[in-house]
């Protein structure tokens, strides 16, 4: 019988094991899985399909923006709330001293985010296609899915920073306070152009707005700003928050 001690540590095995346990844990935490999966789907069904302002374009447009809304949720929560709570419980420290590399911790959470993101995308696509009559070319469907999944990465960075700074008991509320208004102001709930001019200007500062614009480019529904702009804003946010996370991590060590 093989044991972990006998073998040279198999990195892949560790990664998979960590990801698997984390996933199982999250699925067993209905407080996390149900809202993150349900909210985007519910909102999309209401605003995008049932009370659609314009049945020809709205279902497509909102399918995309709610997918963005959907994928940034797990990123913020699994990282932000997850790390904060584990820190509070001391679990984070325990994992730190285990032989598991830190990267496994991060990779497992990223893959977790990806899995939830994919599930949300699958649900939204199915609802859009069946009830909203969304018709897109195959390459559009696939590119959208890729953009959404990869687009969750900057939000993982943001989540990580939040998780390292926030206290366990205040983390869920704080993350929600950031997540929901930011989504609304970025035009994920309602088309950005129905918001007042000032708010549209403000949306430029918000990363979900840029991710949504990138995705909307695929269906030619964006506001027409260059791709490079959106990409660089997202990259800047990622770098900034990775930097902040690293800083927070080291600060924690010194405590």
């Amino acid at each position, binding site marked *: 019988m093989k044991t972990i001690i006998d073998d040279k540590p198999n990195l892949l*095995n560790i990664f*998979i094991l960590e990801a698997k346990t984390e996933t199982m844990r999250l699925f067993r935490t209905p407080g996390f899985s149900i809202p993150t999966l349900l909210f985007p789907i519910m909102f999309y069904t209401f605003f995008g399909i049932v009370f659609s*302002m*314009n049945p*020809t*374009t*709205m279902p497509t*447009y909102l399918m995309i923006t709610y997918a963005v809304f959907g994928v940034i949720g797990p990123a913020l929560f699994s990282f932000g709330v997850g790390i904060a709570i584990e820190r509070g419980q001391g679990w984070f420290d325990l994992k730190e001293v285990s032989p598991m590399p830190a990267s496994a911790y991060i990779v497992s959470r990223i893959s977790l985010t990806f899995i939830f993101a*994919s599930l949300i995308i*699958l649900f939204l*696509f199915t609802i859009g*296609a069946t009830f909203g009559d*969304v*018709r*897109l*070319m*195959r390459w559009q*469907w*696939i590119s959208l*899915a890729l953009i959404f999944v990869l687009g969750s990465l900057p939000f993982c960075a943001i989540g990580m920073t939040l998780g390292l700074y926030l206290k366990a008991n205040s983390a869920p509320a704080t993350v929600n306070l950031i997540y929901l208004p930011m989504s609304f102001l970025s035009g994920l709930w309602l*088309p950005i*152009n*129905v918001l007042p001019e000032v708010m549209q200007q403000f949306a430029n500062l918000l990363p979900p707005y840029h991710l949504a614009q990138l995705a909307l480019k695929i269906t*030619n*529904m*964006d*506001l*027409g700003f260059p791709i490079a702009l959106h990409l660089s804003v997202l990259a800047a946010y990622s770098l900034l928050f990775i930097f902040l996370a690293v800083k927070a991590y080291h600060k924690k060590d010194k405590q």
Partner: protein
Amino acid sequence: MKSKLLVITVFVLTVILIAFFMLLPEPSLKLDADKKTDELSQEYKGSFIIRNVQVYDGHFRHKKADVKIIDNKISVIAEKLPEQSKSIGQSKLPELDAAGKTLLPGLIDSHTHAYQNALSEALNFGVTTELDMFTMPSFANPHQQQRKSLENTSAADLFSATILATAPQGHGTQYGFDIPVLHSVEQIPQFVADRIKQGADYIKAVYNSKNAKRQHFPSISAEILKALIDSAHQQDRVLVVHVDNLVSAREAITLGANGIIHSFVDQVVDKEFVELMLSRKSFIIPTLSVKASMTQQSESEQLLKSNSNEPYLSKQQHQQLTARFPGFGISSKTLQTEALQNAFRSVELLSGAKVPVLSGSDAPNPGTTHGLSLHGELELLVRAGLTNEQALHSATGAVGHHFPIGSRGTLSVGSSASMILVDGNPFESISSTQKIVRIWKNGVQFERTQFGAPDMHAQKFKPGLITDFNRHLNQTNMGKGLGETTDKLAGGKSTVKIALVEHEHTANVKARNEDTNQYLKVRGELKPGFMFPWSGIAYLLGETQQNGVNLSAVNSIVFKAKASAQTKQLSVLLFQTGSFRPIQKDVELSEQWQTYHLKLSELKDVDLTDISNISFVKTRTIGEFEFMLDDLYFE
């Protein structure tokens, strides 16, 4: 083991994902050919943008412009409109790229006589406004109401003089309408007030001077004309005068008329007259189309054949275009040629001196028809010496300077989007106006009616019994059966009652059937109310009124008939599909049963391949009538 499981899991997930993405629906793909028809059938309605188009706005030419229409009105005409921002809440306006085409205001025909389908026929050729110069108020008034609404999108807007002002037995009285005529100056204020009350947008008078060479119809006096002009002007109405010679025109303008109708065939305008027109700021509507037709030089048949105009003309319009005037006194060819040359030369001199010229066709006089003839008129005006731009102006922007038609004839900001898109450049070739690509009336695209070639598939009727009246009236051996018909259809008041009656077994009637032997008894009363009162029975041949049948294999219509003593005359009317003017054949009936043979070959101008209705009616004589019919055959 573990890695195997992993591989399998990854594999299964991949397969599921691929399957999912394969299942996601794609937009239904169309072949390129389909796309093209799609592009053509795309509707531009209400709010849309036309790009890269040459625009003539009624006054100026814009070689390349973008036009934005918002809520059925012109919103912007600009050299280049910015790209539409891709907004979603309100969807993007549809855009029509019209490079190489020209956008014109909906055309205005400044001289027509409107009745029946005139206004939809006009719109079918992009004429979105008609100025009628004599029709009955009963026709004009509803249409004058409708022109106020943006929803009037399936017919041209109508402005009308309603009943014209003429002398007893004068021009205008010959059409059989019961119209008021002018004997004295005292009548005038009341006459003008009545016209305005009945909806006249302007007043039209017919005048022929006592000093004119030809005195071919009685005319109102110069005093009456003067009183008409003054009275009209007091009531803020434009007054136009129908003339056919220079002498009368000179007098009319001197007396203060705003404009004259018809160019002159008697002589070419002189310098003095041109000066007079300029100083009085008067205009002329030359109606060269009808002048050409009167002098037997109409080119309406070429017009009909060119630029694929033909399919868009109804059968009746065909007849109108190919109809010809009788001689009109000028019989020699040289004189006729000269007469038309005078008309052309007059137009050339007047327009050369910048006297306003408006185009009018005088449709539907013989050789002209609503809609298409205005395009013909533009060609004639250019031939007479107008530049292409002047000709376009005469049918668009110029009209509003003289008649109270609002912004019609212009594409200006805020004007309703009545306009036509034509292929090519009418500034180079005026006949381009006939290459109509699209027509909009008040911002709504008008689907042009195509009448097509005569229906070759029309059912062919063979000789045989139609009915012996022993069965119900709607059961005929061919066709859709018989039924009542009266002028109530056209607003009249005549009545009819029909009944199947048993023959008395008298010696001179042989029973052909043991059980029943019936005939049809038609009785009723012709009452005044419609111009041509009728009452009787109609035999419908086709499945519907629009489907005629082919009677070319039939020689005669045969029937037995008799009538009451005072009835005597029975009219047989043959209706061609789509036409309201039947071919009429009268039969004298006696009080005894007799068999009548009506030879179809004796009927003139009838296309037997497309007959929708044969009616047996009493016409003309007002009063009660009674006639009987039996054994109706085609032979």
